[in-house]
């Protein structure tokens, strides 16, 4: 792999950019791999990357039914934060946020990490109390967050109407090192690094069956033939239940559609990420100038990648009251992603009833921010067969044992 650098840009500039190679290879699937990762989104690619980097396992295939990063990795609102309440979540989300800080350098690929600061608005008394509690919890967990008063919120976001009357801003949970990154670049950067380690990224390859023998995984059947493997990592977000069904077990997951939309580009207007969970809306401005807006999830099981119209209306109605200047903006695009929701709104990183199959799902509405941390923890789980400290609390058995990691406040809808 040729490294990207300012010298490479200069060299290619002098020869009309004819010399850039492919960022990753497009190999035919082999008969057998040590590890097959299903799902070439951020989480799947990060899992493969850290399997190679941290554990030296490079005989790995990452297969996807569509194109690389074309699921929720390409559909989210790119928010990165780690201001969660419970210790296990704080640990894995903060690990993830910390890895994002240097990910561009680690991957030699500019993921445009922008720690611009993130506000979670408190618009009811209950929310204010909840967020103050989170700030105290974060202090104990070693995560830098602050409670800030309305005047400071207004200073950070001058376009915000903090007076209400319907949704007054009573303060905010502020994480100065939260922010955004370029979502596609995260997938592309990991893919390039995986390909460079000799791993096979196989796109347009849909898993049609999981072959097991005596309670142990043997391989997968795909639209491009059978592939054998010693270990199988299922990292397919909203389609987790479908894949689990092929392997003969069920998951505590329901798939819902979560929507996002972007406005036409405008001049710089807001340089932090603002989340307003009471009204189910969140907003940031992309480098292109578009306002990136996230809405609520549908309440019913759904694999459509569209989402219901009424949720857009509710989100926009509330955001216009908080940000009056956006009322005349045109919206350019709207889409949905299929999020995999667990009962306690925390992810599942776990062994399964089938030996050799590992599952990473349940990130729900908050998958993008957790990509590096999730891959880090999942790689350890797959390599060793047992979860390391980051993944230990996120096993499937927590439902049976009642050890929930309740993040319904931190996750809410806006994640």
């Amino acid at each position: 792999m040729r490294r990207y650098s300012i010298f490479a840009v200069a060299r290619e500039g002098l020869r009309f950019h004819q010399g850039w190679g492919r960022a990753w290879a497009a190999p035919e699937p082999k008969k057998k791999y040590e590890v097959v990762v299903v799902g070439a989104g951020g989480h799947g690619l990060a899992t493969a990357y850290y399997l190679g980097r941290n554990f030296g396992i490079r005989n790995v295939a990452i297969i996807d039914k569509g194109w690389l990063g074309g699921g929720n990795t390409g559909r989210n609102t790119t928010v990165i934060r780690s201001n969660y309440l419970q210790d296990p979540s704080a640990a894995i989300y903060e690990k993830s946020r910390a890895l994002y800080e240097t990910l561009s350098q680690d991957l030699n690929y500019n993921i445009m990490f922008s720690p611009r600061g993130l506000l979670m608005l408190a618009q009811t008394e209950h929310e204010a109390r909840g967020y103050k509690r989170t700030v105290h919890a974060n202090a104990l967990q070693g995560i830098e967050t602050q409670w800030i008063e309305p005047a400071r919120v207004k200073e950070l976001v001058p376009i915000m109407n903090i007076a209400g009357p319907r949704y007054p801003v009573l303060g905010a949970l502020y994480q100065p090192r939260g922010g955004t990154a370029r979502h596609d670049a995260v997938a592309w950067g990991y893919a390039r690094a995986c390909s460079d380690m000799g791993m096979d990224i196989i796109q347009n390859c849909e898993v049609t069956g999981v072959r097991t023998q005596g309670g142990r995984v043997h391989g997968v059947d795909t639209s491009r033939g059978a592939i054998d493997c010693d270990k199988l990592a299922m990292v397919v977000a909203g389609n987790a239940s479908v894949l689990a069904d092929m392997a003969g077990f069920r998951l505590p997951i329901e798939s819902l559609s979560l929507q996002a939309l972007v406005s036409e580009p405008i001049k710089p207007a807001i340089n932090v990420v603002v989340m307003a969970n009471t009204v189910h809306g969140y907003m940031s401005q992309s480098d292109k100038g578009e306002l990136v807006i996230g809405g609520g999830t549908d309440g019913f099981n759904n694999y459509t990648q569209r989402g219901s119209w009424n949720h857009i209306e509710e989100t926009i109605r509330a955001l216009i009251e908080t940000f009056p200047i956006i009322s005349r903006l045109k919206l350019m695009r709207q889409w949905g992603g299929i999020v995999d929701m667990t009962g306690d709104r925390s992810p599942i990183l776990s062994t399964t009833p089938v030996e050799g199959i590992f599952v990473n799902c349940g990130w729900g509405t908050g998958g993008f921010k957790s990509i590096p941390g999730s891959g880090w923890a999942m790689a350890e789980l797959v390599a060793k067969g047992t979860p390391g400290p980051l993944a230990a609390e996120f096993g499937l058995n927590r439902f049976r044992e009642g050890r929930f990691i309740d993040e319904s406040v931190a996750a809410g809808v806006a994640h």
Partner: protein
Amino acid sequence: MLTLTCPYCGVAAEETELAPGGEAHLTRFGPGSSDDDFEAYLFSRSNPKGVHFERWRHAYGCGKWFLAARCTVTLEVFGTYPAQCFAPPPELIAAIKAKRPEWKGFQ
């Protein structure tokens, strides 16, 4: 917008008039049941990509709970029926089979 016909009052209700209630026909397990059964009842869901039987409440209408068969991929509604059923009506199952030959059937 998703439109379901309430089997009680006959109104074709849009989704904003309804409250979703999750998977239907779950077998309830309570005190005295095995851990496996209790866990499966509380948490495990079939979450199919395709035909799904689910509960809805006509919240801003007659207020009744009812059940619906819907495709989670196309949002096609196959039919609705009263909540006082242990299984979907046979004619509804036949209608779904006719439209979705590959469907595994109600389990």
